[in-house]
């Protein structure tokens, strides 16, 4: 494809943030009337690319042309004006306004200062009919399903004469019939000359709906192909690449004899049986966890692999009692336990290092000391008075042991680097001598040096007999660290892989497995 025939042409686009090269010489082209699939693992650079196209980020270098003209996007509003619209996973609608008010928000027809509801309704109806979208213009958005809300977003884009429509995981929250409807609408868009960029983890859908596919990996192009020329396995190979070398390997540190002993005495510490959770903030009927079962052994590092929306975080939160389960049992050392809140989980020796360190793991405005002993106050107090001397000694010990770099224990954690903040969270749990430590993305947003310190620490904990559940979006990290990896996709367990057998391809295979593949001809079971 050349620059003239492409509607949107990005060539050698680079973007870096302090410490991270998010995109390196990435190229992406799309023609009018074409559906382009954009795929890649979490962190491959898809979101950065989207934010560039929506005008949130500006590029460091590279060429951007739109309809043959050089393109400079100033801000999200400008992007929409020139015809680039993005439909995010989190829909941006005003729930208490009607369909038509949402579609024409800020551009309502009518005399100055007034809105003509009649014209608003007419214009909305015209768009909805053109796209064969079956919605009442006056319906409140709040009363619509997620799929219908998505259609409102599409109609909104069309009302702005969209020329490039980017859809981020549009099918993740949809039922099968809703996906079919969406695909029909994408077909309509295509016929009317709109270029669609379809971002999805569901490779079958990409293969079904797209004309061409561009693969990103680690912020670089990893492949570009016509869909008719590639298979699912080809796409998986392009997505994962090979980059295992840079990671800490537990293998090298594991004593073979100890390892063997562990295998002969597989003490099951925790068993989760048929965990079910229904309902997300957006969609109260969504099945988040669908009868998930797994077990965890003493001194084992168990990985949970999955792509965004697979239900990994939801699963560990359900086990920790942070969210309510609909059904399912949890057994600790073979005995059923009733964990309804974090208090119960902590009592049973379970700790959780949450995914969102700043939002859920720490109280940013308080001191390192206060954060570290927050779960340990009962043991540190006499008649409700915190024993400050004992507390300081304990905190000092952990600061030394974990080499937490802070000017002092009275420093507010907000001033610490990501890696040191994470160590504070881990220290908070280790003070309680947990049997099980759940670590959700423990190395996210942490520099390389701190990462390997945290790997080292996890390894030590496991050899001391603490069982670890580790969630990571980086497959190589899971393969390097875990004894066993359970793969999740869309709230179900789709596979379990032992360390010896784990490869990036097998993980990616399981993590993109769905029970049902949707095509416009109907459903086909995998």
């Amino acid at each position, binding site marked *: 494809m050349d620059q003239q025939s492409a509607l949107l042409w990005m060539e050698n686009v680079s973007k870096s943030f302090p410490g991270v090269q998010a995109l390196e010489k990435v190229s992406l082209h799309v023609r009018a009337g074409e559906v382009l699939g954009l795929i890649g693992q979490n962190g491959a650079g898809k979101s950065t690319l989207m934010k560039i196209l929506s005008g949130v980020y500006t590029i460091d270098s590279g060429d951007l042309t739109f309809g043959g003209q050089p393109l400079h996007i100033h801000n999200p509003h400008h992007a929409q004006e020139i015809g680039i619209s993005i439909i995010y996973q989190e829909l941006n609608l005003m729930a208490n306004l009607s369909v038509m008010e949402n579609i024409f928000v800020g551009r309502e027809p009518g005399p100055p200062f007034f809105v003509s509801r009649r014209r608003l309704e007419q214009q909305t109806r015209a768009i909805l009919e053109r796209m064969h979208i079956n919605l009442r213009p006056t319906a409140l958005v709040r009363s619509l399903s997620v799929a219908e809300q998505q259609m409102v977003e599409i109609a909104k884009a069309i009302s702005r004469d969209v020329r490039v429509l980017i859809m981020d995981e549009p099918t993740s929250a949809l039922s099968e019939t809703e996906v079919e409807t969406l695909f029909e609408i994408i077909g309509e868009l295509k016929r009317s000359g709109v270029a669609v960029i379809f971002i999805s983890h569901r490779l079958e859908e990409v293969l079904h709906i797209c004309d061409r596919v561009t693969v990103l990996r680690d912020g670089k192009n990893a492949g570009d192909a016509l869909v008719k020329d590639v298979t699912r396995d080809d796409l998986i190979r392009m997505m994962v690449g090979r980059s295992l070398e840079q990671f800490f390997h537990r293998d090298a540190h594991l004593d073979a004899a100890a390892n063997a002993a562990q295998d002969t005495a597989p003490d099951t510490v925790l068993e989760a049986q048929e965990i079910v959770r229904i309902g997300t903030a957006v969609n109260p009927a969504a099945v988040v966890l669908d009868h998930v079962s797994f077990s965890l052994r003493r001194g084992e590092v168990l990985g949970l692999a999955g792509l965004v929306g697979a239900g990994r975080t939801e699963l560990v939160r359900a086990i*920790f009692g*942070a969210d309510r389960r609909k059904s399912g049992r949890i057994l600790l050392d073979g005995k059923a336990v009733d964990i309804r*809140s*974090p*208090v119960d*989980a*902590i009592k049973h020796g379970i700790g*959780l290092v*949450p995914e969102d360190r700043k*939002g*859920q*793991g*720490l*109280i*940013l*405005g*308080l*001191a390192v000391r*206060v954060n570290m002993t*927050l*779960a340990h*106050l*009962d043991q*540190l*107090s006499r008649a*409700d*008075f*915190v024993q*400050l001397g004992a507390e*300081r000694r304990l905190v000092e010990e952990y600061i030394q042991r974990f080499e937490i770099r802070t*000017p*002092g*224990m*009275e*420093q*507010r954690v*907000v*001033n610490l680097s990501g890696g040191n903040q994470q160590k504070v969270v881990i220290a*908070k749990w280790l003070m309680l001598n947990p049997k099980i430590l759940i670590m959700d993305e423990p190395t996210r947003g942490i520099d390389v040096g701190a990462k390997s310190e945290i790997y080292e620490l996890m390894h030590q904990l496991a050899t001391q007999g603490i069982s670890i559940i580790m969630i990571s979006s980086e497959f190589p990290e899971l393969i390097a660290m875990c004894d066993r990896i359970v793969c999740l996709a869309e709230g179900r367990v789709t596979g379990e892989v032992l360390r010896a057998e784990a490869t990036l391809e097998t993980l990616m295979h399981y993590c993109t497995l769905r029970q049902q593949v949707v095509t416009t001809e109907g459903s086909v079971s995998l």
Partner: protein
Amino acid sequence: MPAARKVNWSDYASQFGALGVLIVICVVFAIVEPAFVSPINLFNVLRQVSIYGLLALGMTFVILTGGIDLSIGSLLALAGLVGAAVYKGGTGLLSAGTAGQAQGFGLWPAIGAAVAVGVIGGLLQGLGVSRLKVPPFIVTLGGLTAFRGAALLFSGGQPISTFTDEYKFWGQGMIGPVPVPVIIFLSFAVLAFIVLRYTRYGRRVYAVGGNPEAARLSGLSVNNITMSVYVITGFFAGLSGFLLSSRLNSAEQVAGVGYELTVIAGVVIGGTSLFGGEGGIFGTVIGILLIGVLNNGLTLMNVSPYYQQILVGLIIVFAVYLDQLVKRRRR
């Protein structure tokens, strides 16, 4: 403070900032109006702020959790009336206003009744906030109206007045040169300071206000802690209800109207963040003193009370602006 401990002074800047302003204002008043610094006047200031101060101690707990309590003025009135009725031997809604002749129950049951009314009122509101998940602003706005209504109903529109010396002592008496309410206020201030600073409970109040989700995931009973702070404001409202009736020699159904705003102003001027998790009793005491000193000094200087209100209003905004400035620099 042990030498080994490093203190981040900027953490206290907002609280000490108010102290700085207080000192400057005191010096200015001392120069302009020497009568201001006489011991009698200074104790007078303290006595004037002691009721606000007691209420502000409770309010500090609530605001530290990120909540607010608008009901304290109304709850104070209700508690004062109930306490007075118990003292005078009123037996219920109808006879309360005219209960002078009946046999009373004594001082301590009266204080106990006033405090109990405050605690129960606070408990109800705490349950509303923590269990029903209604925003604190709404729950206590309801309390503001409902408790006032209850006070009017209970008293039948009549104040309960004229107490014996033993009752009046608590609001009007002196121990040496020090007014009794001042001693009560400062004692509770020390107690509240210790609780917030050195106990497990205090630690948890800060944690819940700083980040409720992180606190919950660390195994804290966020609901119980949230509920408890409204019980604390209720306790202080009850106690203040008794003290005010003693001070004025009358329990009035209109007592404490608008107190919540002055009290919140004092807490905020003292550097406690309305978003929760930051601040403390030291700042609150300073903030309340600042308001008291301003009112007293300006009155001595014959400045119209209308100007005083304008000035206090400006100081609230300015104090919070300073606080934000310090924080922005820190982040």
